[in-house]
């Protein structure tokens, strides 16, 4: 069963396409991260899923209903990028209103705000809040009524690392209770392993989809190897690894993932000249840059 299914989705503003032929499906309990540069089409995709704009071509269904229909809206929660609220309202008033709009008890506002860590500030006007606190109010409204589908546009921007960790823990809880979560980010390092699947958009096209491990394999980026020679053994080590570049007292070389074992054998043969070494896997941002860059 899928809660969100998107097929051949295309959106053009005038003649220039913002999204082209994107397919995507989300099952209950799945966390999917949408990655892309600014302007890659992430926010547009989300607005289409929410029914805020209309697709030029293709189909979207939220649990079998048209996006933006009454049923779809009742099932979906949204956290916009840089979420904003009227500055003269308190968080409690704002959340109570959103609860009423969803047909829930407005008294639930307090426990909901406590859950996102705004227990002490909920009666202050939102105008006095920091960006991170506003983001928490936004998160609180997205948690109302256990939505079946959560659409979160760059939800962790503006959050400090501790809050970000708490945020992902909350998402894990929600996913475990069956909510499907579609979130966007512009950095792979932000979503890391906290999502089940990663979809990379580049210039409106889907260029990759899979788990982080699958993407790592697909990118096939070489490892970086740093070698530190023993005292006076620099030239000997350089001779054993002629492809390495010398930087200060370090030798640096790269190694394709498939040749890692062969490299280990060479390293153990050079034991006499080698004081220490580091094997650095490609960073998440390298992988992301490689995949989105290759598509462009």
């Amino acid at each position, binding site marked *: 069963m899928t809660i969100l299914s998107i097929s051949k989705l295309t959106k053009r503003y005038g003649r220039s396409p913002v999204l082209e032929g994107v397919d995507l499906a989300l099952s209950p309990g799945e966390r999917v991260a949408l990655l892309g540069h600014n302007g890659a089409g992430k926010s547009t995709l989300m*607005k289409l899923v*929410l*029914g*805020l*704009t209309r697709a030029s071509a293709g189909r979207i269904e939220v649990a079998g209903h048209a996006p933006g229909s*009454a049923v779809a*809206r*009742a099932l*979906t*929660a*949204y956290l*916009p990028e*840089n*979420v*904003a*609220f*009227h*500055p*003269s*309202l308190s968080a409690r*008033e*704002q959340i109570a*209103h*959103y609860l*009423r*709009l*969803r*047909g829930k008890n407005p008294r639930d506002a307090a426990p909901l705000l406590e859950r996102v860590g705004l227990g002490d500030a909920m009666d202050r006007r939102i105008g006095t809040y920091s960006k991170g606190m506003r983001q928490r109010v*936004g998160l609180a*409204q997205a948690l109302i009524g256990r939505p079946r589908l959560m659409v979160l546009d760059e939800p962790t921007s503006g959050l400090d690392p501790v809050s970000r960790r708490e945020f992902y823990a909350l998402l894990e809880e929600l996913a475990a209770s069956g909510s499907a979560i579609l979130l966007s980010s512009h950095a792979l390092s932000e979503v890391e392993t906290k999502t089940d699947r990663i979809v990379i958009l580049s210039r409106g096209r889907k260029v990759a989809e899979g788990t982080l491990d699958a993407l790592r394999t697909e990118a096939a980026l070489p490892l970086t190897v740093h070698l530190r020679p023993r005292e006076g053994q620099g030239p000997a080590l350089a001779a054993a690894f002629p492809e390495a570049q010398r930087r200060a007292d370090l030798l640096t070389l790269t190694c394709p993932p498939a040749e890692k074992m062969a490299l280990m054998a060479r390293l153990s043969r050079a034991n006499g000249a080698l004081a220490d070494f580091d094997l650095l896997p490609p960073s998440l941002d390298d992988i992301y840059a490689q995949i989105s860059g290759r598509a462009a």
Partner: protein
Amino acid sequence: MISRILSTARIEFLIALRNRWVTIAIAMMMLFSLVLSVAGSAPSGALGADRLSVTVASLTSLSVYLVPLLALLISFDAVAGEVERGTLPLHLTYPLGRGGLLAGKLAAQLLVVALAVTLGYAVAAVVAVQASGAAALAGLPALFRLIWTSVLLGAVFLSLGHAMSSLSRRPSGAAGMAIALWLVFIVLYDLGLLAAVVADDGGAFTTRVFPWLLVANPADAFRIFNLAASDAVGAASGLAGAADAIAIWKPLASLLLWPLAAALLARAAFGRVQP
């Protein structure tokens, strides 16, 4: 649906209260009413009208200008402000349609207008009764009429303000359009008609087209209805003859239809806003 609209109205009224719009609107109407009713203490017996009816006649002329202005001031920010603050996309993902969102805003702002005119006119009534005793009570029906027609007039311009707000999508632009709208409906329209009547010099335009054009404008319909519905008010205004020339159902129909038409226009304009 109704509970969602009520919740929206409630939160919008809270915002209006915090933004001092409620205070400003009430203070403005009370102040102007007070000035008018004190200044309008000219001998009324000679006109064959009670003191309150005289006040209502003055208030009618004042409200034609003030109520639309107040309504536009309160409403021009409704959509454009949400677009600028970035609060609109989130609102539109909630199970409340665009029509419901607009209806909630309209209800809250209409309450502000209703409070302002009721309290404002009440001040005038109190002054009139204090000055001439129970005799002034004869004008109470005229006062009630003035209140509910002011609310209808307010509804028209609140919805027109929402339409401007949706069309411009920026608060500054919406404010400019609201002022322009006020000038056209309240000032230029009448000047244009006056010029046309003078130029026509009693011809077909003056007798056939002009009365319709007059009631087609909600502000003029408001004025004519209030002056024609009460003999005393008409007498006090000195415009009874002019007002009587038009059947009373025409301005009334105009006052009842305009709020609907304006609300539909606002809804259509809001429908074009892409968040």
